[in-house]
């Protein structure tokens, strides 16, 4: 028996597994005859492989096979025209530096690593550009529409406003860098049966991709991913490297494990794309917004397009009759980006929420007052009411907790020796999604409930949230409920992304529990038992060891009638050292307005994690490339600075915790994205309040503070 010091009904259901090492991650599965794959990567940025010498590698100790485009195993979809251009083993083209060009499979990881170093490629090199900012400013560079232009009222109305500001904001590439490295264990078995242990945010999506690429029935493929060591979006797709590993397993007829290196995490599994954004704001002298223009350029790759919601927020977050947006993507010779926590909205919010602060300053208004003054009554973009929005209450709670009354509107007013203090605020907002999911519930006469769904838990505490929903509805203690996930054979659910899992899968859990309850009530009535009888007694009386219900659940017409969003308000207090330029975050208060809080502990953890990610985005994180070579220069944990404990102050989290009446049966909305969205602007705004220095290029490192007058 496991001993517990403190028992709390809100504990993470998998907490004990995680802290004792019992949680098993994909790379820890031992299959009989397991072999090890290591990727050989390109050392040029663009061009063609003209020769590949694999002889020395093939002769190296322990090597089973060296796979490349020269001996590619069959993957039918890769042979067709169209689809992604970057198909490992199916192209001799090089699209970015560090692109996989071959895989060595050996009987140990060390031997595969050594043999991979012996593979020698020669190339026909082509000119390339990895510098996004250069491409943006180059009139001749290719540019693509990322989203249709949006216009409400007069275009660029800000230009003729009584008070106007226009500013340009820059974000570098950020790399997800979850603790767990990416990879897969693939086992291609006889009769085209495929078993994989994967790092994925969606077991059904992975299963579907594999079926599609290899043209085998979906039932032949079993995907397991019970525990995931962080994803932040980078595991939302099945990358070509997973497909390559499955090909390798098919080729060598043995299970193959591929775990990429930390350096490879920077090049081949996506990133938050760099962005350059211009915001124009116009207001009248009373502080009412009269024009918003948000124009953004986002990074994409030359071989596959990537777009995200960078300019979404400008369309509805503030009351304003004249709004126009434009979003353009600009390809560079790098790996294709992918959503990173808060995705495009976090990028856009840095610019918009910085600009709002700049406008408040131009008007000599408290930025909080300015936001309240321009808080919209309804969603002007969709011309619908908000299903639920409590921003003013969130402002009130957060401003009290951070001590906003201590703030001075004049920057540089709070000085203690060389340290200058300041306060900043920002809003985060993200679409409150609800998709379609199925859940199976098995209620047993031994008093336990098993719930099953092919959803994922990349860390937010999915199992805990689902258990709490069921426990509340059925009155069964948490420790008698088991929520099973991360297995493609379970009832289908979408990938874990876009802050939608609790809303989507939770609704199906709700429906299953309601159905189980009514079945029990029916059984009780039919066996002359009291309607309030315990389900154990009812099942026993009916000689039933268990009952099962499967329900599919999805949103209805309510989504046509209401505009549904989750909101967050971030308050930050910083101090900035005048001589060294060091920024220290002194205090953080984040207020979540995301409906009912189903799981208080894991919800708080989400907000804390988002704040830490936000500190990184604001102050330290940047993936640096030497554009002469197209190679990353800080692709390791020593030089790519994610925040450490010493960077993080006290974080207070508060929730409005009122049900959204329309979103779903729980009244609960997602919060994974809003925990991060807007946070970086709160820091930049606090830095401005402390110093009068407006830093519009992230991250805000000491050199930028010193360089800004």
């Amino acid at each position, binding site marked *: 028996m496991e001993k517990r010091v403190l028992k709390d009904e809100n504990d993470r259901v998998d907490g004990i597994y995680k802290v004792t090492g019992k949680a098993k991650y994909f790379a820890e599965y031992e299959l009989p005859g397991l072999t090890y794959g290591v990727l050989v990567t390109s050392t040029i940025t663009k061009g063609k492989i003209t020769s590949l010498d694999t002889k020395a590698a093939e002769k190296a100790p322990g090597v089973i096979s060296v796979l490349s485009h020269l001996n590619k195993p069959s993957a039918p979809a890769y042979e067709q025209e169209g689809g992604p251009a970057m198909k490992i083993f199916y192209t001799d083209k090089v699209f970015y530096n560090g692109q996989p060009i071959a895989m060595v499979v050996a009987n140990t990881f060390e031997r595969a690593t050594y043999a991979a170093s012996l593979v020698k490629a020669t190339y026909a090199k082509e000119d390339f550009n990895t510098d996004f900012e250069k491409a943006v400013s180059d009139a001749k560079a290719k540019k693509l529409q990322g989203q249709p232009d949006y216009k409400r009222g007069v275009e660029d109305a800000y230009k003729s406003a009584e008070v106007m500001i226009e500013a340009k904001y820059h974000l570098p590439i950020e790399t997800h860098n979850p603790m767990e490295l990416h990879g897969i264990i693939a086992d291609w078995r006889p009769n085209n049966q495929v078993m994989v242990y994967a790092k994925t945010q969606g077991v059904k999506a992975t299963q579907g991709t594999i079926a599609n690429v290899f043209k085998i029935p979906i039932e032949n493929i079993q995907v397991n991913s019970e525990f995931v060591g962080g994803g932040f979006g980078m595991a939302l797709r099945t990358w070509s490297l997973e497909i390559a590993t499955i090909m390798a397993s098919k080729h060598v007829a043995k299970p193959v494990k591929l775990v990429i290196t930390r350096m490879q995490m920077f090049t081949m599994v996506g990133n938050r794309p760099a962005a350059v954004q211009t915001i124009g704001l116009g207001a009248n002298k009373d502080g009412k917004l009269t024009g918003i223009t948000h124009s953004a350029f986002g990074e994409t790759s030359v071989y596959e397009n990537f777009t995200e919601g960078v300019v979404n927020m400008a369309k509805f977050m503030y009351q304003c009759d004249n709004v126009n947006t434009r979003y353009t993507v600009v390809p560079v010779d790098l790996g294709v980006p992918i959503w990173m926590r808060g995705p495009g909205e976090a990028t856009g919010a840095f610019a918009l929420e910085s600009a709002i602060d700049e406008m408040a300053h131009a008007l000599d208004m408290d930025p909080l007052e300015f936001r309240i003054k321009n808080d919209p009554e309804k969603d002007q973009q969709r011309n619908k009411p908000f299903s639920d929005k409590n921003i003013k209450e969130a402002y009130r709670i957060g401003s009290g907790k951070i001590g906003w009354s201590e703030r001075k509107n004049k920057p540089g007013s709070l000085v203690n020796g060389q340290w200058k203090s300041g306060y900043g605020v920002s809003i985060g907002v993200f679409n409150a999604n609800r998709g379609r999911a199925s859940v199976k519930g098995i209620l047993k006469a031994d008093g336990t409930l098993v719930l099953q769904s092919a959803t994922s838990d990349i860390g937010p505490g999915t199992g805990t949230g689902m258990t709490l929903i069921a426990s509340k509805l059925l009155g069964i203690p948490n420790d008698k409920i088991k929520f099973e996930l991360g297995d493609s054979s379970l009832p289908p659910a979408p990938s874990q992304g876009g802050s939608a899992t609790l809303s989507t899968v939770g609704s199906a859990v709700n429906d299953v529990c309601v159905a189980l309850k009514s079945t029990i009530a029916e059984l009780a009535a039919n066996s002359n038992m009291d309607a309030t009888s315990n389900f154990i007694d009812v099942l026993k009386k009916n000689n039933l060891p268990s009952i099962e219900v499967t329900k599919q659940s999805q949103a209805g017409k309510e989504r046509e009638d209401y505009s549904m969003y989750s909101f967050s308000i971030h308050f930050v207090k910083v101090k900035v050292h005048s*001589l*060294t330029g060091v920024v220290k975050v002194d205090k953080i208060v984040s207020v979540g307005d995301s409906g009912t809080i189903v799981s208080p502990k894991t919800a708080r953890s989400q907000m804390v994690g988002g704040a830490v990610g936000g500190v990184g985005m604001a*102050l330290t994180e940047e993936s*640096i490339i*030497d554009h*002469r070579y197209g190679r990353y220069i*800080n692709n390791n944990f020593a030089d790519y*600075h994610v925040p450490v404990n*010493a960077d993080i102050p006290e974080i207070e989290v508060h929730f409005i915790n009122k049900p959204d009446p329309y979103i779903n049966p729980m009244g609960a909305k997602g919060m994974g994205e809003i925990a991060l969205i807007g946070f970086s602007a709160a820091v930049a705004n606090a830095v401005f309040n402390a110093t009068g220095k407006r830093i519009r290029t992230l991250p805000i490192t000491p050199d930028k503070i010193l360089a800004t007058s």
Partner: protein
Amino acid sequence: MINFQYLRTSSKKSALALLLKDKNAKFIAGGTNLIDLMKRGVSAPEKLIDINHVPLKQIELVGDKIIIGALASNTAVAENELIKEKLPLLAMALNAGASAQLRNVATVGGNMMQRTRCGYFYDTEMPCNKRKPGSGCGAIGGFNRMHAIFATSDNCIAVHPSDMCVALAALDAVVVLAGPKAERKILFKDFHRLAGDTPQLDNNLKADEMIIRLEIPLNNLTVNAHYLKVRDRASYAFALVSVAAGLEISNHKITDVRLAMGGVAHKPWRLTASENFLRGKEATIENFEQAAKLAMTGAKGFGENDFKLQMAPNTIIEALTIAKSKA
């Protein structure tokens, strides 16, 4: 990884004998840098001689010197009561370095021997004269935000990454080296080299020698001492600029002063001209500013690290101000 032979010895004599036998052998102690270098293909020793069991972990006061064995861990030194009392600058510098986990295994000798963290040095697909003489310097015209501003050469603008070594340079430490025949002593400030025409050489340790111990003369910089490290995050980040500042103040006059910087040169950078200026003067902000200005003579930026021309003197002033304020 390329296979290597692993040997272990518990005596200084046999360690030196093993080293002499094979010029492709390397000592390994904490291994916190060497293992990285081997993984990246920057270093490929055929033999690793594990010296962790050689009894060189002493930390003691002998006469008017503090003796620190080359194999004492960074944590052991930083947490040692004698060091905290007599050489607080060294303890502060050690605690500013790396992370707690790294400090627990990293040794004093290994800290002195660590290689630069220049990204071009670690990527074998990029030019680097330190790794491959004659291949060029990637950092010149490239990413050089972390790089040197003092005494650079056209061959290399890398910096020495250690914090501990900055304090040791300031504290007039002496390094004791053992060779196959005899021991010799070298001033700490002369242990590391400038890049010059031989950027592949970080220091003056000969191929057949080993670091035995440090000898640090006692001083009166036990109160007004401060190690200030400016970095991109509050822990586990290399210095943009760091300053070791020690003052001895009596009757409002500076009677002794030590200043050294990290993150600015190929070796720990002792600020002798600034020290000479301050000695005998009053510990005023004006004098600190003047000393900081003097320190910058000959400094040169390479683009991305131009900010250091401002950050470095600012950090000197702040380190001296904090050191002075201690009581």
